[in-house]
């Protein structure tokens, strides 16, 4: 028989007993729907967790730290070396010095960071009040945390913004030798972080000393995939590195397990559905025994009979898979909408708790097809092996 004829015949057989077919397919829909729904929850929570830890930019960011070893100072020479590595798009060195800050009346201390204004967004800070960016590379401006402003009694952002601070930075050269420099910086942005003391400023403004060494160098890489390679290259030069991807990898590992556990529950439902398919085909085999006898008597091959049965199982799996994926996906979408509706009405951020990647949907349909086909093999083989004469006599 041609494949198209096998499919026609199988489809006709499925249509003949519509109720039973629908019920069997429903079993697969429940199983596949459960898998898609639960694993989508896993995917959604994973994305949520990862996005809390790092924005997408951070995943292509490698941080190089200072080292205790000889000849591994993080200075302009090192930056030049890093620039030479293939796949590196940009480099942002960071200076940091302890600093004392003061207004006309009060004084306190903080840590002054100098960054390339272009890469301010790569730092883990946000200006909750005022400007989020510096106006230029050389602007005498600072974005400062509430924690630093406490000592200056400037915790009211409205009052603090626009204030000019006198910032005295200190570079310690040795135990009894240090250099000092005083800057006048205008507060243009304030972070509501009240635990960490920091004051960010453009690196060119802070770079007041000879032969400065950076506290960190951030390397922006072109592709996420080349992270490992570049990391190795940098570490082979003797610099320790770290990256958000470390944390993200750990999160992903945890969620891989979570997804397997969730998918496992759905898999149990799918197994029940597979037994349903097996049962349906076994009954169909009994019902159609005479018909199989007729088919064999008028020249049907054993393989034709087997293929028709297998195709019926496969079709049940395919239809169940497609409908199940749609159901699981829609269910997740619906809950997403509901959560977001509540979240938005409570002024919270919109979140997606369920996420169904396309490849996963495709994979699950394929999986349903495969499992169903396997469930159909045994009844199909039994049908193929029926003795034609005995089958003909069977009523």
């Amino acid at each position: 028989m041609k494949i198209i004829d096998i499919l026609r015949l199988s489809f006709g057989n499925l249509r003949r007993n519509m109720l039973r077919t629908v019920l069997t397919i429903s079993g697969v829909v429940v199983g596949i729907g459960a898998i898609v729904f639960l694993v989508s929850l896993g995917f959604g929570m994973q994305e949520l967790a990862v996005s809390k830890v790092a924005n997408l930019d951070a995943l292509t960011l490698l941080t190089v730290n200072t080292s205790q070893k000889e000849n591994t100072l993080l200075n302009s020479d090192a930056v030049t070396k890093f620039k030479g590595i293939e796949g590196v798009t940009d480099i942002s060195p960071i200076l940091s010095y302890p600093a004392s800050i003061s207004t006309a009346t009060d004084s306190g201390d903080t840590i002054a960071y100098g960054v390339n204004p272009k890469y301010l967004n790569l730092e883990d800070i946000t200006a909750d009040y005022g400007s989020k960016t510096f106006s230029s590379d050389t602007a005498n401006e600072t974005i400062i945390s509430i924690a630093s402003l406490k000592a200056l009694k400037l915790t009211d952002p409205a009052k603090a913004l626009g204030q000019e601070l006198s910032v005295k930075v200190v570079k310690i050269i040795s135990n009894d030798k240090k250099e000092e420099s005083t800057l006048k910086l205008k507060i243009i942005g304030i972070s509501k972080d009240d635990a960490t003391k920091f004051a960010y400023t453009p690196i060119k403004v802070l770079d007041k000393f000879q032969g400065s060494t950076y506290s960190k160098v951030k390397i922006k890489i072109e592709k996420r995939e080349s992270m490992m390679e570049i990391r190795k290259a940098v570490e082979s030069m003797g610099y320790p590195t770290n990256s958000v991807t470390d944390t993200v990898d750990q999160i992903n590992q945890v969620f891989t397990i979570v997804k397997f556990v969730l998918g496992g529950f759905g898999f149990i439902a799918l197994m029940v559905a597979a037994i349903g398919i097996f049962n349906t085909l076994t009954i169909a085999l009994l019902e159609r025994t005479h018909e199989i006898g007729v088919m064999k008597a008028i020249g049907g091959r054993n393989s034709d009979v087997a293929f028709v049965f297998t195709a019926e199982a496969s079709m049940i799996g395919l239809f169940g898979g497609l409908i199940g994926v749609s159901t699981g996906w829609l269910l997740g979408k619906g809950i997403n909408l509901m959560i977001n509706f509540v979240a938005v009405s409570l002024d919270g951020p919109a979140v997606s708790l369920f996420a169904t990647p396309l490849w996963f949907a495709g994979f699950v349909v394929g999986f349903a097809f495969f499992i169903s086909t396997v469930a159909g093999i045994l009844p199909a083989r039994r049908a193929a092996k029926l003795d034609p004469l005995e089958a003909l006599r069977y009523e």
Partner: protein
Amino acid sequence: MAKVPVFKAVNVSKTYQLGDVEVKALQGVNLEIYSGEFICIFGQSGCGKSTLLSIIAGLQKPSTGEVYVRGDKLSTLDNEGLAKYRRSKIGIVFQSFNLIPSMNIIENIALPLTFARISKSQRIARAKSLLETVGLAKYADHTSSQLSGGQQQRVAIARSLVTAPWIMLADEPTGNLDSKSANEVMRLLISLNRKSKRTVILITHNPEYLDYADRIFFMQDGKVVKTQVNSKVKTEEDVDSVEHISDDLKEVAKEIGAVKAGNSNADDGMKTKTGKKSKKKTEEEEPETEEMIPETNTTEPTDTETTITETETTTVEPAANDAEATTETEEPKE
């Protein structure tokens, strides 16, 4: 010339084990059947005639002995080979019609061609022409349950002819039919033998049909107890022109009519075409028979088996009509 028999059974026995009881369905059957013969296998229920037919049809294997088809041992064929043999070399008609209820009439007739991997358009065309031949063209889209027994059996005959086999095996084809339908079916079988030179093997326990056979094998207790050559019935040598065939069949039809006059009360109410005809309309059925023959003529082989190929190649589709051609079509895919 030395004729190779179409079928040759040598010492064929078949023993069933029913619990502790050993049933000897066939005991050393020897027979030879030649091309173009109309054979009746006659006997009471349980004499083994159906067992013999199913062995000839390759539906079961003999316990001992050997069946030769055109000189080739049937036992050498595997399941696949047997399926091909049943599909392309023989046509089987059963007492219980055995149409598949979920398919319409056309699909039922075309099913053997479906197994032979013939394209849908070709097999539907072939099935339609055969449905016309058996006079049921307008029932193409009906299902078997919508047809009367006689109509179903005619459909079954059309199905058995769809691959243009050279042998027809009929196992009590009229057993479930009223006499009128039975006569129609018999007429079809006879015309297939007389006109198309097909070998027909008819299993029956109805002695009325014996007159139409060239030879009769009488069976009893699993043995062929008597072989009778029927001199009254014309043999293939006599049938050499279309006119002769018509005359011959008129005669046959008349004889059938006589049989029918005896018990025609059992008309099937479901039949729309012939069911309402009463006894006095019996004469009208004769032209119908004649009409059917020329129709058959266009699609069915008329002379030898070589002609089967030629005629059918030109009239309908090339691949589907001839048993050999069918074999060729499916070869590359297997």
